[in-house]
């Protein structure tokens, strides 16, 4: 059954708010954990809608893209580069 997009958006925002305390920037695969039963394409649709609503923003290294809550990634810039070196 297709997930309700508003419900999914709320789940994603709640998930990101919780995870953001430890890691502001997250991969798309992390967002998928917001609702394990939803299809990937539904998560993508909901995440894209949140970007349009300016609640979520993309962060891109040029080769990889991560998602963060609006304003959260500006405070934190080093994590991705540290991960990249690992």
């Amino acid at each position, binding site marked *: 059954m297709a997930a309700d997009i508003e419900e999914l958006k709320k789940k994603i925002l709640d998930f990101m708010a919780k995870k953001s305390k430890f890691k502001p920037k997250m991969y798309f695969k992390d967002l998928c954990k917001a609702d394990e039963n939803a299809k990937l394409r539904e998560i993508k649709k909901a*995440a*894209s809608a949140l*970007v349009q609503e300016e609640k979520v923003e993309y962060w*891109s290294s040029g080769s990889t893209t991560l998602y963060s809550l609006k304003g959260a990634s500006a405070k934190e810039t080093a994590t991705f580069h540290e991960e990249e070196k690992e």
Partner: protein
Amino acid sequence: MHKETHWKHGGIVGVFGYGGGVIGRYSDAPEQFPTIAHFHTLRVNQPASKFYTSRFLRKLCDMWDHRGSGVTNFHGSTGDMILIGTSTDNLEPTFYDLSHQFDMDLGGSGSNLRTPACCMGKARCEYSCLDTQAICYDLTMTYQDELHRPAFPYKFKFKISGCPNDCVAAIARSCTSIIGTWRDNIRIDQKAVQAYIGGEIAPNAGAFSDRDWGTFDIQKEVIDLCPSGCMYMDGNELKIDDRECVRCMHCINVMPNALRPGVDCGATILNGAKAPILEGAQMSTLIIPFIKMEYPYEEFKDFVDLMWDWWMEEGKNRERLGELIQRQGLSHYIVDILGREPIPQHVREPRSNPYPFWKEEEVPGGWKRDLADFRARHLA
């Protein structure tokens, strides 16, 4: 000299709603160098086969002088036009100009589908078995969401070459290589073959005319170099055992007036090329030997859906499709994910049968034996 860079790459820069196309670059000494505190790069989706008018290029350079540094890179590895160096507040105006004055869009970057790229195809090349530009344009338009809104584990590339000469190096650089081929016979013009042998037509379209290489020797320069040994002269006639042809294109490249690809054309689909970040560089591996690639390319797009669903589900963060195939196994991908029958062409090693098969006359005593006598010595 400390040999430290003062550039930081990556950031939240981008145009509204797009997750790709802009690569942020900042100076870590903005007070010292305020004019280059930001130096972001834009990737602009190039027209298929990179055909422009000079008027277009002049206008684009004027725009970029106005909105950015004026520095460009034609073209990036993916094929995009690269506009290097602008500030965050100039990104949206540049995108507005590109989309409204030039009918251009940003290309792919980040965990997106990257801008599909193709060779010149039928526009200028007689070898082309595909309308590469039509395929490139159709894929670009069909997968706009994948190009601009990132949700893949990592980058993904389509490249389309019209023939096995593979002028965009699709086999070396793309997750999905679409390479033109044919499944009937190479067309032979025997008169032209004789003209090459007689020296009336220069081999390789005259490409090696810088010095005297002697008279053209079809046996030495074509037939003996055929990787599958499928060519021979029958009197004055050139013969090809097309069943054995591996589409290396050598004979066609040497004698383009005499030999041409067949007419029943389509594409070979390969997966998994990548540059050497993990596990070393990898070439694409054959997945579909022949597909017709006729508009609207439904068969190909059904294949893409299966491929992407699997990769999005199973791919680790920053794992390319080729690496996932390597990790989970080619046979699993072909049989379980794509639902295709495995064929000998999928096998890299061994390419010849490793098992010895004996004939009766080669075995002492032949196939007949006394079973009771055998059982007396061997328990069942």
